């Protein structure tokens, strides 16, 4: 009986987040909207933790029928250790990011529109959870679109001209991605006749073995992966990110880069394991394509970041590089590669939200200037944000004890599939780590160096911001030091997924 009760948690989480969006519209005050959002993210975090403990203890994954319509007709959710872990970490990070960036939200978002900002945050949260849990490809498409619109609204929240341009750019690229994804789904439904992931997989394996519809299958694979790659800003499709992050609030940018991009990557993972299956993926050689794009993204993202003079744009390009790591892990093609990628999803989500929130606070301290040179000495005036930023930067470079190290270590371990692959992966990791160091270390030096002349902080950090910084750093250390149990959960989750 108790187990059945816990099986409802994925649905409750999604429903709560969506309900939160609707209830927020009825509130008359931005502060109340913030409290509601925090309450919902915390409740979802607790629900996901219960779910995680339950499914890891039972070593099970389950499907939840929506409205009790059986398999080929109804809509389903699916949850296992991997999904529960992702939902848990994402909801914690969501809570911390919104709490840490609240002052900027209240000062920079167009006044009297703050509550709408929180509606969008709730919708983003709901759609991220839905993308994590859904077992139905068309539901995934609908939530991708909800996610897109809400993300664009978050990008334009500041309301000035450039943020609207950034939002339009984001919308065009995203619509392109979801358009391609939708055609992929149409063809997929056309050749298999199903919308639920396990049913599609059954048919696709039969088709792949018999060699029927080989060309449409390749086209479907291409459309789905290109569509989702555009949404998750894999290297040549990253152009919407820098302006979008530079012109949105720090909390918004943290959520978009740390969580929204990751939700599409989790969907790619679900497509690899549950729709196409590893067998079909290997037969179509999709992995090699992902591998090459991932490697190119790792290097090019870092090179662009290196040339950037503004901190939020630099962080955006660094996201491009980190997305490259995740795709490289998918491209390695063995279970260890997927495990490393999943861990990197968590590590990068935790680190990038930390970096954006602390950078936002440093920018506030310096009176709103976003250039890296303008931040000189900001860390001395605002030590909590300075230390948090430094931790994030070191984690991105891949120094041991920090989250970024653990994932890079596992990427290096996983590349055992042949001499050529091993040498490419290790070279790319080394080059990219050096590049990361080249562009992150100067920013850290800059925020700690002595400012020219006497400058006063324009804004003092609040108590809640300090707590958030400590919590973020703790998460980073937990991911960087006690990574073995997390890796074990991810491995268990991937086994149950495949």
């Amino acid at each position, binding site marked *: 009986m108790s187990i059945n009760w816990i099986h409802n948690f994925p649905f409750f989480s999604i429903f709560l987040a969506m309900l939160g969006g609707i209830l927020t519209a009825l509130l008359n005050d931005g502060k109340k909207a913030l409290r509601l959002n925090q309450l919902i993210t915390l409740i979802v975090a607790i629900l996901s933790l219960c779910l995680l403990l339950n499914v890891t203890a039972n070593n099970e994954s389950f499907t939840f029928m929506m409205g009790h319509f059986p398999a080929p007709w109804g809509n389903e959710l699916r949850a296992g250790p991997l999904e529960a872990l992702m939902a848990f970490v994402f909801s914690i990070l969501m809570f911390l990011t919104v709490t840490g960036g609240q002052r900027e939200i209240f000062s920079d978002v167009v006044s009297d529109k703050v509550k709408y900002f929180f509606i969008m945050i709730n919708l983003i949260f709901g759609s991220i959870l839905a993308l994590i849990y859904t077992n139905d490809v068309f539901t995934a498409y609908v939530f991708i679109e909800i996610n897109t619109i809400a993300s664009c609204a978050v990008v*334009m929240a500041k309301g000035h001209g450039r943020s609207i341009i950034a939002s339009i750019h984001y919308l065009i690229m995203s619509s392109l991605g979801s358009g391609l994804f939708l055609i992929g789904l149409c063809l997929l439904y056309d050749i298999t006749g199903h919308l639920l992931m396990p049913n599609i997989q059954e048919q696709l394996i039969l088709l792949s073995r018999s060699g029927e519809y080989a060309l449409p299958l390749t086209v479907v694979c291409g459309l789905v992966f290109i569509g989702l790659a555009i949404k998750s800003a894999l290297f040549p499709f990253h152009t919407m990110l820098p302006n979008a992050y530079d012109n949105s609030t720090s909390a918004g940018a943290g959520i978009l880069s740390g969580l929204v991009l990751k939700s599409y990557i989790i969907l790619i993972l679900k497509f690899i394991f549950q729709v196409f299956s590893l067998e079909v993926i290997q037969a179509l050689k999709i992995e090699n394509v992902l591998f090459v794009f991932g490697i190119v993204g790792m290097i090019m993202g870092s090179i662009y970041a290196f040339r950037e003079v503004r901190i939020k744009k630099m962080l955006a390009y660094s996201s491009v590089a980190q997305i490259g790591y995740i795709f490289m892990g998918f491209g390695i093609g063995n279970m260890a590669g997927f495990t490393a990628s999943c861990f990197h999803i968590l590590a990068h989500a935790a680190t990038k939200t930390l970096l954006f929130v602390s950078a936002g606070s440093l920018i506030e301290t310096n009176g709103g200037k976003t250039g890296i040179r303008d931040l000189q000495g900001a860390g001395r005036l605002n030590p909590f944000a300075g230390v948090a930023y430094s931790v994030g930067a070191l984690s991105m470079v891949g120094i041991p004890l920090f989250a970024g190290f653990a994932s890079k270590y596992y990427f290096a371990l996983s590349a055992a599939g042949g001499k050529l692959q091993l040498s490419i992966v290790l070279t790319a990791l080394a080059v990219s780590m050096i590049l990361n160091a080249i562009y992150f270390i100067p920013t850290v030096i800059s925020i700690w160096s002595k400012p020219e002349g006497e400058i006063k902080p324009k804004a003092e950090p609040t108590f809640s911001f300090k707590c958030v910084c400590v919590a973020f750093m703790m998460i980073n250390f937990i991911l960087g030091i006690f990574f073995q149990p997390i890796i074990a959960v991810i491995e268990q989750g991937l086994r149950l997924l495949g």
Partner: protein
Amino acid sequence: MEHLMHNYYEAAAVILFGIGFMNLLLQSNLIKKFIGLNIMDTAVYLFLAAKGFIYGRVAPIVTSGEAVIERFVNPVPSGLVLTGIVVSVSVTAFSLALIIRLYKVYHTFDMDEIMKLAREEEKREY
């Protein structure tokens, strides 16, 4: 060629998709850009609707009390098309709202011009 004539709905959908796609990428007028996006979406729905229909059959609404599967088409593709239309309507509404806001700031619909003005604005600030 024979296949093309046989699947003329699909062929039309692909051509429409190409037109929409090129408009989305090449037009500098924002309104025309989003009309392109709409054409692209419509092409996908045409494709899906055409794929979901079998000539000579009707929608599965049982009126006479006898349900013969051979007389009906699968309703799911039509349902998907409806959902897709709703999605694309909301995306269009949202993008038009954005364009109006942009027009109020820069007084033009031309994307190239807007980008030029925005770059100048940025230079003044830094």
